[in-house]
Structure formats: structure tokens, C-alpha cells
């Protein structure tokens, strides 16, 4: 009732630091006598290193050392030590471990020199000879080797495919309208704007302070501690600003290993930054092949649904993502079957990339539903509504909240969907074909435990901290809002800090779970601080709060007041004075209410409507207009949330039309490993984008009722665009991205 800033479009608290160049990213911290490391990458895909000649490199002025598998220090032996907190089942990649080459671009040497220029030149002089072995990198040529992925702890957040229900085979065979279709998606690389870098500051006592590009400083600390056998207290990882992540920073990348190794061996501070080309030499969104069968009644009722996906993984780890479960949760089809398999290839292990699995699977099912709508002669939106479900058919339990129907209605109205002429190629303007398409988005709303600390300082200001990350999402800002509201302080009296392993532990930033997870910890720790303040107030002589319980008071305008009589009030500053002028400090952990949450399926939803213009002669596609309605619980800050959704929609445009890492399978090497040839949208590619938030009240997902908005924006876009392209051209393209050659 006294909310002042939650839900308001507050400008970013980190805005000033970012527009003045003062925000420091991992490669921008420095230390006296900092050495620079440059990585040498393998030029073959599979085989062994037979000879390394570092003579020319070492002969150069300023070159300190060249690390290879031949001279690296002895490190942890067991695989277990190399497993970071996000490692999938398998045996993690170890840089410079031995002479084996497992994938193209693998780091094979680190050249360390006094200046970056010296290191870079010296790296070009390292001569490596290989004995090559035949490699396999093409998913579509090795589908016959697909197998079930190994399961591990990862399945806690990434459930296996749902159990089959009913009798799919029978229902599909008997269905009057049948559709069998398939979709192929290529590799994609996250390509955050910031290059992966680690600056390792070597302390006098051998302790390390590591400025790392990561989505979770505690994960980097854990990894370094395990691999190098250093106690936690001697490794501090700091990451106040992160230049984008999109999943790429969920696992420590090899520059961290190399920089730490070099700093410890040379007893000197070292920085290692990757090049943009090397940003294509670790995790990626896996290439996938999907197959969907739908069986329906003439009125559109789905009787049968089968969704099967095959994805590539590396030879050493089984990367898993949730691809096929979404379709089973979205449509009530009583007879359904799901399958998910992986094909190990000579590549690096894939890695979660914005809405991992979700955007993949939803793109397929939502294109298939569009195909079915034309077979039925039914409006695509009407077909969705016909099969709408209020209960999760996979788990046979209710949704914690689901305003998808309102999303469909509001977005359709805003878009003007009723004016659509159903026939493909029926909306042309001269040589320009116009198409309208729609699709649905679904994404998880998970919560994990997290810790936070709150301090009311001697001057009555609030400081809150938690070792989470802000990869550009707005965490600094929304946590400041939550803390300010909970203790009734103006925003400028609140400072939230993150990205430092000296702070209380929080999970990495991923899966759209930070707002709910860390937000809950911040709320709880501020409430605990409020309870401490009440204790102090009660102890005061003749205190009007003497008998008050925590539920009897509220915080507003830097004061604690009695709900029953708001004129009974006390300044928070007075309470600090009451504490002998000492700061008041609390630490708290927010736990998840698994018992309650387990009874519900917790998803964010979206409905997307898109207009495209396709040049009939050239096949060029423009997304001229898109409307997304999002139901993601409570929106803490419409300014940051809207930007997240728009950014996600542009990722959807990118996935649908532009983005793909293309491999030359003869060499097992990505060909377009730079930002000139790996296409992502630029400013002029983007036209009208509209976002609607359909607010939901949800007290199951977490105490704040937020579902997170980092990923839901991308999920429905690619299918909506592909469906609009079909409507414009009459061509159904089964491979993403839909480049102009596929429309000619």
C-alpha cells in the first residue's frame, strides 16, 4: 500500500557510469606490471599436436613465456575438479591438457608478453604441427548415431521430455487431418559485444583478485578454486559490469583458466582477452533437427501430437536443453509423444543461449500449428484458442498463473489481426508481398535460493549486496527499487552492489530467474533489517512501539510508522543513533517454497503478431511491424522490462532472418567467425516494435510475484516471422534463418 518505486519506469542507476565510460568491464581493470596473454588456436578439428616450435616467439623482446601442454603446471587430476556449477554430464574440456585436439579453434598455446602488441605478434610466430584424424561435424549426416543424453544434476532445472500420454500412434492414424513436418536450425553463437576477458591481479601474498567476464562470479571462483586447488578465501572474483552475456558467461571460459595459470606460474598479474574470432571457439546454440506430427479433427481439435528433436553435442559432454516439453504443456492434445536425443560430434559443447531450447522447440511447434491451420482452413489464432488449456497436460497440474488468452486478445487487437485476409499472397502492394503471422511464446519462471546482505549505515543510508550479476538486464536498478520500497527510503539513499564473491552467494544470472530469485532475497533481507530496527525502537524509553509486532509497522519517508496510528513514527536515523551510532547489519537467505511451487507449473507467456514485407523479385524480408503481449507476473520496472522484451524481439528477428554460424564441414571450421559475416540486426533492420504487458497476480512463483522477462521476448518471434513469410509468399521454409536465397 505504500509502494513508491516498484512498478515505476525508473531510469537505470548504472546509466551515468555507462554513458561516461566509467563502468569498467573485465579487460579494463589493471595492475602494476600487468602482462598480456594472447591465445593461439588450433587450425585442425581432430588429431594430435606432433610438434610445437616456440623459438621464434620467445626470441622476441618482451615475450615472457609461451605456455603449451608440454610445459603447463601440474593441475587437478580428476574430471570432477573441472566441473563448474553449470557443467552438463561428461568430462569437461581442459585447456592445454595434452596433445589431443578435440575441436577446431581449441586453445593450444598462450603467449605472455609485456605488452599486448608483443604478445599478439609472438602468437603469430608459434609453429604447430599436427597429425590430423578424420572428424565428424555435420549433424544431418550423423542422425543415425543419435542417442539419449546422459542425465545429471542439470535435469533439476532442465526436465527430460514428458511421459507419453494416451495412444499417439492410434490417434494420429485415425485423425481426419494429419500433418507431418520438420524443421532444421543452424548453429548460433551468443556474441555479446564484450569479448571474453579475465584480468588476474596477483597479490603480494599470492592471493588472486580476478576481474572476469561472467554471468556468475561465484561460479568462476568455484572453478578456479577446484582446478588450481586454492582455498576460496584466496580467490576473489569481481565482475561489476558485464558487456552482455546471453548465456555465454554461464560457464567459465578458457581465458579464465589460462590467465590464472599464467599469473600463478609467473607470480605476476596477467590479462587474457579473446578475439572476436575466438568468441566462436566455445559454447553455442546447438544445431537441431526437429520432427512434428499433428493429428486433428476438422474443427481444429488436436487429438495427436508428437514432437521429437535431435541436437548436436560435443564428444566430451552431453549438453541438454528443453526443446520438446513446451508443445506438450501448451496444447491439450490427449495423445502425445515426446523424444529428445543428442549426436556427439567433434565440436565444443553447446551452451545455453537466450531461451535455450524454448525458442528452438516453440519455433517448430508454432510453425507446425500454422501449417495445420492452412490445412484446416482455419484462422491460426482460432486454432490456438481451440486447443487452449488451463491446466498443464504434461504434469496434470494447474499453472500458477496464465494470462495467455488475454495476451492473444490484446495483441491481436493492437495489431489489427481481424483485418487479415487469410489467403497467402493476397496482401501485395506492387512488387512487395505483405504477410501477417502469429505465434505463442512460453518460458520458465524458476526461483532458486539466494543470499543478500543489508546494512543501514551510520548516516541512515541503505546498502544491499548479493553476488549476482547484471549482464545488462537492469539488476542494479530493480534491486535498488525493491530495497527502497521495503524500507521506505528514496532511491538515492539506497545502493545495491553485486558481482563480487566477497558478497553473499547468489546463483548465476540466467534463465530469467534473477528478478524473482535475488529480488526475493533483497526483500527478505530488508524485512529482516526492518525487524532489527523495530527491536531497537521497542527498547527505547517509553517507546510507543514497545508492544508493536513487525506486522504492525510500515516504512515510509525514512521513517518507521505504526499502521494503526501513522502519526506514531520514528526516523530511521534516530534508530541508528539508538544503536550507539553503529551501522545495523543483517544477512538473509531466501529459500524456495518447493512444496507449494511443486503443485503448479510456472511459466511466463507471450503472444506475438508480425507483419513482413517480402520483395517478390529479390526475396528480401523486412519485419515492418510486430506486437508482443507478455504475461510475466508483476513488472517491477516497465522501462527496463520493455527494453528486455524489445531486445528479445530483435533477437527473434535475428534468429528468423539473419543469425547462423556456418560450418565448412570439410575442415570442421566455422567460416563466418566475425561480426562482418555473422549477421545480427543493425539499427536500420529494425522497424515498429510494440510491447504490451498483461499483468498477472501470482503468489506462487516467488514472494514478489515476478516471472522474469529476459527470455520470453525472443521465444515466439521466429515462428511468427516464418508464418508471416508463408502468408506473404506461399512458401514454407523449414530451415532457419530464412535468408533470401531460400525465398527465390
Amino acid at each position, binding site marked *: 500500500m505504500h509502494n513508491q518505486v516498484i512498478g515505476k519506469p525508473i*531510469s*537505470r*542507476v*548504472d*546509466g*551515468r*557510469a*555507462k*554513458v*561516461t*565510460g*566509467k*563502468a*569498467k568491464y573485465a*579487460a*579494463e*581493470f*589493471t595492475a*602494476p606490471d600487468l602482462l598480456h596473454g594472447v591465445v593461439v588456436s588450433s587450425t585442425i578439428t581432430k588429431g594430435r599436436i606432433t610438434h610445437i616450435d616456440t623459438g621464434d616467439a620467445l626470441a622476441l623482446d618482451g615475450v615472457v613465456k609461451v605456455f603449451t601442454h608440454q610445459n603447463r603446471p601440474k593441475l587437478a587430476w580428476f574430471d570432477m575438479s573441472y566441473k563448474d556449477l553449470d557443467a552438463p554430464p561428461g568430462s569437461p574440456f581442459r585447456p592445454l591438457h595434452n596433445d589431443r585436439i578435440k575441436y577446431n579453434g581449441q586453445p593450444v598455446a598462450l603467449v605472455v608478453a609485456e605488452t*599486448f*602488441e608483443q604478445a599478439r605478434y609472438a602468437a603469430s610466430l608459434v609453429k604447430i604441427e599436427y597429425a590430423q584424424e578424420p572428424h565428424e561435424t555435420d549433424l544431418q549426416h550423423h542422425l543415425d548415431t543419435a542417442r539419449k543424453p546422459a542425465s545429471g544434476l542439470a535435469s533439476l532445472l532442465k526436465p527430460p521430455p514428458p511421459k507419453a500420454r494416451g495412444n499417439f500412434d492410434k490417434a494420429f492414424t485415425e485423425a481426419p487431418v494429419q500433418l507431418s513436418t520438420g524443421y532444421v536450425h543452424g548453429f548460433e553463437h551468443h556474441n*555479446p*559485444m*564484450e*569479448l571474453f576477458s579475465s584480468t588476474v591481479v596477483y597479490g603480494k601474498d599470492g592471493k588472486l583478485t580476478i*576481474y572476469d567476464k561472467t554471468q556468475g562470479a561465484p561460479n568462476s571462483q568455484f572453478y578456479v578454486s577446484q582446478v588450481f586447488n586454492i582455498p576460496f578465501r584466496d580467490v576473489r572474483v*569481481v565482475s*561489476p*559490469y558485464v*558487456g*552482455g552475456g*546471453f548465456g555465454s558467461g554461464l560457464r567459465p571460459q578458457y581465458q579464465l583458466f589460462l590467465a590464472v595459470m599464467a599469473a600463478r606460474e609467473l607470480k605476476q598479474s596477467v590479462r587474457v*582477452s579473446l578475439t*572476436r574470432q575466438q568468441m566462436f571457439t566455445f559454447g553455442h546454440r546447438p544445431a537441431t533437427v526437429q520432427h512434428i506430427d499433428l493429428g486433428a479433427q476438422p474443427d481444429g481439435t488436436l487429438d495427436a501430437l508428437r514432437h521429437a528433436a535431435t541436437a548436436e553435442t560435443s564428444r566430451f559432454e552431453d549438453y541438454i536443453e528443453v526443446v520438446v516439453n513446451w508443445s506438450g504443456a501448451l496444447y491439450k492434445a490427449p495423445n502425445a509423444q515426446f523424444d529428445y536425443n543428442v549426436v556427439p560430434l567433434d565440436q565444443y559443447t553447446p551452451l545455453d543461449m537466450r531461451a535455450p531450447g524454448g525458442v528452438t522447440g516453440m519455433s517448430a511447434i508454432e510453425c507446425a500449428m500454422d501449417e495445420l491451420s492452412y490445412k484446416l482452413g482455419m484462422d491460426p489464432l482460432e486454432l490456438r484458442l481451440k486447443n487452449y488449456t488451463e491446466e498443464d497436460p504434461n504434469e496434470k497440474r494447474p499453472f500458477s498463473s496464465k494470462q495467455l488468452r488475454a495476451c492473444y486478445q490484446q495483441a491481436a487487437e493492437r495489431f489489427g489481426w481481424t483485418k487479415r485476409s487469410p489467403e497467402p499472397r493476397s496482401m501485395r502492394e506492387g512488387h512487395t508481398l505483405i504477410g501477417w503471422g502469429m505465434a505463442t511464446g512460453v518460458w520458465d519462471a524458476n526461483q532458486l535460493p539466494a543470499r543478500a546482505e543489508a546494512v543501514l549505515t551510520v548516516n541512515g*543510508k*541503505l*546498502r544491499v549486496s548479493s553476488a549476482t550479476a547484471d549482464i*545488462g*538486464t537492469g539488476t542494479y536498478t530493480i534491486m535498488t527499487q525493491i530495497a527502497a520500497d521495503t524500507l521506505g527510503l528514496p*532511491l*538515492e*539513499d539506497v*545502493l545495491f552492489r553485486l558481482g*563480487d564473491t566477497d558478497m553473499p552467494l547468489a546463483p548465476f544470472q540466467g534463465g530469467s530467474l534473477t528478478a524473482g530469485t535475488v529480488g526475493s532475497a533483497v526483500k527478505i533481507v530488508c524485512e529482516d533489517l526492518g525487524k532489527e530496527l523495530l527491536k531497537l525502537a521497542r527498547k527505547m524509553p517509553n517507546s510507543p512501539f514497545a508492544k508493536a509486532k513487525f506486522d504492525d509497522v510500515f516504512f515510509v519517508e525514512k521513517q518507521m510508522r505504526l499502521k494503526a496510528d501513522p502519526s506514531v513514527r520514528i526516523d530511521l536515523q534516530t534508530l541508528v543513533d539508538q544503536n550507539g551510532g553503529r551501522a545495523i547489519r543483517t544477512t538473509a537467505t531466501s529459500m524456495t517454497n518447493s512444496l507449494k511451487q511443486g503443485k503448479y507449473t510456472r511459466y511466463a507467456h507471450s503472444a506475438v503478431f508480425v507483419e513482413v514485407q517480402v520483395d517478390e523479385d529479390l526475396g528480401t524480408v523486412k519485419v515492418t511491424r510486430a506486437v508482443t503481449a507478455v504475461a510475466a507476473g508483476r513488472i517491477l520496472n516497465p*522501462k*527496463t522490462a520493455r*527494453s*528486455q522484451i*524489445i*531486445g*528479445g524481439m*530483435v533477437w527473434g528477428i535475428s534468429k528468423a532472418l539473419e543469425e547462423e554460424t556456418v560450418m565448412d564441414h570439410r575442415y570442421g571450421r566455422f567460416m563466418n567467425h*566475425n*561480426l*562482418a559475416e555473422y549477421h545480427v*540486426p*543493425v*539499427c*536500420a533492420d*529494425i522497424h515498429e516494435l510494440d510491447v504490451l504487458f498483461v499483468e498477472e497476480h501470482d503468489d506462487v512463483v516467488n514472494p514478489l510475484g515476478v516471472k522474469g522477462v529476459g527470455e520470453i521476448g525472443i521465444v515466439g518471434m521466429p515462428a511468427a516471422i516464418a508464418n508471416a513469410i508463408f502468408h506473404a509468399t506461399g512458401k514454407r521454409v523449414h530451415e532457419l534463418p530464412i535468408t533470401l536465397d531460400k525465398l527465390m
Partner: protein
Amino acid sequence: MQIQVTVNGKTRKSEVEDRTLLVHYLRDQLHLTGTHVGCDTSSCGACTVHVDGVAVKSCTLLAAQADGCAVTTIEGMAIQDSPTTSQLHPLQEGFKECHGLQCGFCTPGMIMTAADLLKHNPNPSEAEIREALEGNICRCTGYHNIVKAIQWAATHSTKPEPNQQEEPVVADEHLFTNDVTTGEVVETH
């Protein structure tokens, strides 16, 4: 070799290697790390600075080529009113207020490119802004708010009144600083 470059109004005499790129000179020698490296191949625009008033990608220029030139980086955009206070450039205010940034990595380059645009075209249309930013990639915002930020700056190009845009009082400094102030830099003025 020795070069003399005027960076953000201060003349610097520095010893650089022939092969040192302007961006590395700014970042590693002058510690002006607001100019970011996103690609090395002139594709992303994160390293954009002004050389003699023209926006250039500093990863594609040798430091030696800037000898005798005036360079402006993001750190030089705010207007220093007095020894202790400074006001943000309208573009900086615009990006901050219109949420023209998320992770902030592309932001300095975007602002420097936009400043060049506004110098030549003080009231650009949306289409002109989108065309002008062809060499700058943003992976977070989806560009809409960047366009708005530049439009905002175009209508606020007069210098704001002093004290109007005071820095908010914050409980503590928001930044982690680990600045090293020593280096090979010789300031002559």
C-alpha cells in the same frame, strides 16, 4: 616512436610502438577505458572516437596516425563547468534517460557516432539516425531506445542550466575503481 596527441583537451606526448593501434594507446597507455574493443575488425563500432572532429573506429587506426591530431573519447564528452562539477553531454543524458543502453558496452561508440551525426545534421529523422548508425552494433536494446535517445539529444542540444542536472546524492560511490594513475604518459600542459 614519439607522438603528440591532444586527447580530451590535454596534450599528451607518448612513446608508442609503430604497430600500436589508437584504441590500445587510449586504453592501455592513457587508461581511457571507456573506449571499448568489440571486434578488432571495424565491424562493431564499440571503439568509435573522434579524431579531429570526425568519428572513426580507433581499432582501425594506428596511434601514429593520430600524431598531431585532437582526439575526443567518451570521457571527454561531459562539459566541465567548474573544477568540481561537470554536466553530461545531451547525448549522454539522452542515453541515460531514454534507456538507450543495457549492458553499456556499445554505448560509448554509439554516443560518439551520434555526436558526429548531430554535428552535421542537428535534426535527423528516425530513418537518418538508423542509417547513420550502420557501423555500430548493439546486442541488447533492440535499437529503439537508442534512436529515441538521439532524438532526445537533438531537442536538448542547448547546454542545460548549471545545477539543473545535479548528480544525485548516492550512499556510496557506485563504481569499483582500481585505477592505476602511473604510466608512460607525459602531460605537457
